[in-house]
């Protein structure tokens, strides 16, 4: 049953992907929109002791405990104060056979962009402030470069997932 359904879906989905783009400092990043669960405004978190500074803490997301990660600090882009515009993008990552929900703090969400798979370029091995292993590829949108993030890698936690998977 499922096999035939897959066959019938138009090929559009196979060539085109949708990304949610957001800004950090002067840079623009994109995440697969299917992995975005929701977008929330920043609210105070409960701090977690003895973890890297970019793991800001946890919040209560309708009864689930969800960690919040500051992407600026994660990518060492410098600190900026949280304002009303500061946004938390709640993402779903698949790590191993589990699904993990996490929020990432970004400066602002900008757009939803359609990207043709063919236009995605491999990420260069230098130049970005991120270690490029977190970046799936680069794509040009309206003259700006958007870095497409690998969510599963991004949301791996130091000291938790390294040895497990």
């Amino acid at each position, binding site marked *: 049953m499922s096999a035939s359904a897959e066959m019938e879906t138009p090929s559009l989905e196979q060539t085109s992907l949708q990304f949610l783009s957001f800004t950090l400092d002067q840079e623009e990043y994109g995440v697969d929109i299917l992995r975005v669960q929701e977008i929330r405004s920043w609210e105070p978190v409960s701090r*977690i002791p003895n973890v890297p500074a970019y793991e800001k803490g946890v919040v209560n997301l309708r009864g689930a*405990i969800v960690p919040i990660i500051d992407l600026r600090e994660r990518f060492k882009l410098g600190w900026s104060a949280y304002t009303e515009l500061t946004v938390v993008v709640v993402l779903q990552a698949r790590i191993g056979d589990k699904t993990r929900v996490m929020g990432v703090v970004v400066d602002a969400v900008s757009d939803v962009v359609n990207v043709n798979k063919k236009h995605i370029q491999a990420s260069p091995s230098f130049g970005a402030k991120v270690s490029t292993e977190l970046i799936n590829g680069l794509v040009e949108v309206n003259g700006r470069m958007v870095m497409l993030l690998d969510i599963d890698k991004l949301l791996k936690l130091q000291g*938790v997932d390294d040895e497990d998977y």
Partner: protein
Amino acid sequence: MAIDMQQFHQVFFEESFEGLDAMESGLLNLDLGDVNAEDINTIFRAAHSIKGGSGTFGFSAVADFTHVMETLLDEMRDGRRQVTQAAINVLLGSVDCLRDMMQAIRGGNEINRHGVSQNQQALEDELESGAGSPGAPSAVAPASAAQALGVDSSIVGWTIAFSPHKHLLKTGNDPVRLFRELATLGDLSVAADLQGVPDLPDLDPEECHLSWRLSIASPVPVQAIEEIFDWVEDDCDLALQAVYARNRSASGESGATLPAAEPAPAAKVGPVLKPQSEAVKTGEPDDRKKAAAKASSSIRVDTGKIDALINMVGELVITQSMLSLVGEHFEIAKLDQLKNGLAQLERHTRELQESVMNIRMLPISFVFSRFPRLAHDISGKLGKKIELKLVGENTEVDKTVVELLSDPLVHLVRNSLDHGIEMPEVRRAAGKPETGTVILEAYHRGGNIVIEVRDDGKGLDKDMLRAKAIEKGLISADAILSDKQSYELIFMPGFSTAEKLTDISGRGVGMDVVRRNIQALGGNIEIISELGKGSTIAIHLPLTLAILDGQSIAVGDETYILPLGAIIESLNIKEERVNRVVGKGETFLLRGHYLPIIRLHEIFKVPHPKAMRLTDGLLVVVEGQGERYGLFVDDLLGQQQVVIKSLEANYRRIEGVSAATILGDGSVALILDIPGLVRLANQ
């Protein structure tokens, strides 16, 4: 379009494992002297539904295997066969074999075919050995009475004349499905007879005009075939004809000439069983792990509990609508009404919470039920006489506890059976009854559930434990140990007192893992023992893992929860009672004992604590792993029940924190874990 059977597999496996458990306990309870037909019937029914289910889902290996068991049980049920210990042992072995097969299938692994065929051979041998009396009720089919008892060894196949009545298709039966089923029994050849088909103008497409001649080249029992045709019996003409091997004369040898006979050598029941169980054992840990990883967790709930839940939700809805009525046109005169409504809401919410918790509660018999078998097997293997008593099986425990408890308990019971209880002659010499007693008891005490494994065996020898620990370098030779500390030596990693390793216990990897598992559940384990009289191992566990009585504490701007059970007392600190050890570690003198002081703001690096000096804050005396510590905090807030939320589901394990919870204002607070805090403080 075919229905996706996959979705029912989970249910099938669950039911089958339950069925296997039922068979096992039924077999163990059979009293050889006085066999109750109803008991056998229970076992038979369980086997029958496993067979039916596995047939439906296409697990033909399971179905075939169960079928042989069923035949044996059927004869016992009809009184055509004596129930012997040998037969019971074979059946018990088959239950194990089936369980392994199912686990293999569920985990998507290869079935251990060798073990299965050996076991099946043992069953068939058993079937042949005690063939029933000739006066048995004859079967419906024209087959002989002997065939009804199982497989006549000279039969090599069957021919079946199957002519359905015209309305067969309208009854929802499809001959093709029957044939497919038949094909699982052996090589099937099908020849359709087209003679009955009318000319096209006269043909009613909803009627069945065909008839078939089928032949199966496999010595299956007649019941297997009859069963397949069970549903269409009244809607067709059916004739079964056995096909015999050419050299019928020597029925003893003919087994070897059968084309489809099992290759396993015919041997006596006992020896056949043994290699099988060993073969299974070697493959076991791996298989089980895979299966466990795949199985999704579900729970069977008593409908009574669900009804209670639905009632509660009904009440809640009524209260809610009442409250919203009050709120819609609120005036100060309605204040009393509002207060009443809120009180009602609170009550209902609490009751609802309790009912929901209740759903997760399972009787501990889920864990206990496997132990009679264990005792039966081990006592047989070691030549010991052991009576296992189960007490308080209906004590309810949280599902998670039940699941995680089973492995540690198996270990403890095995230890008792293997090391605790002495051989009969030793017991006699010591003036004890030859039969040793192991009691497995569960009961509630306070907010805890206590599970005890008690035996009247030889008990623990303190001096021997001590000598062993010194020899292994676990303690220094001049260490001073209390009784309790000596017994706790057995929980140290790498400590095993068994002089020789048996395959039952004594690999020395056990007790420390047991203790770790229990502690991971938030419980503790203790030993009381008296040399020569026996030992008691008691496990204390929190009743539920989902809710906890907590004390909120404040440090800086942060709020943490301490499990109320861990708190002994809290007090103000007088400077003169504080001592410093080597300038760093702080201790507090409390009634003659020096408590190490753990500053929470320090180990958790809390920004801006209000109390930096010890005299400004409070010292909460807490207990963890049998030791007491003074936890230094800013202030105590309130006591409340908190719902435990996992931090690890989306995040990670944090040292010093067991879980998180959500406070009344919607914010998250961490629940502290005393042993973890101690580890952090020692770093």
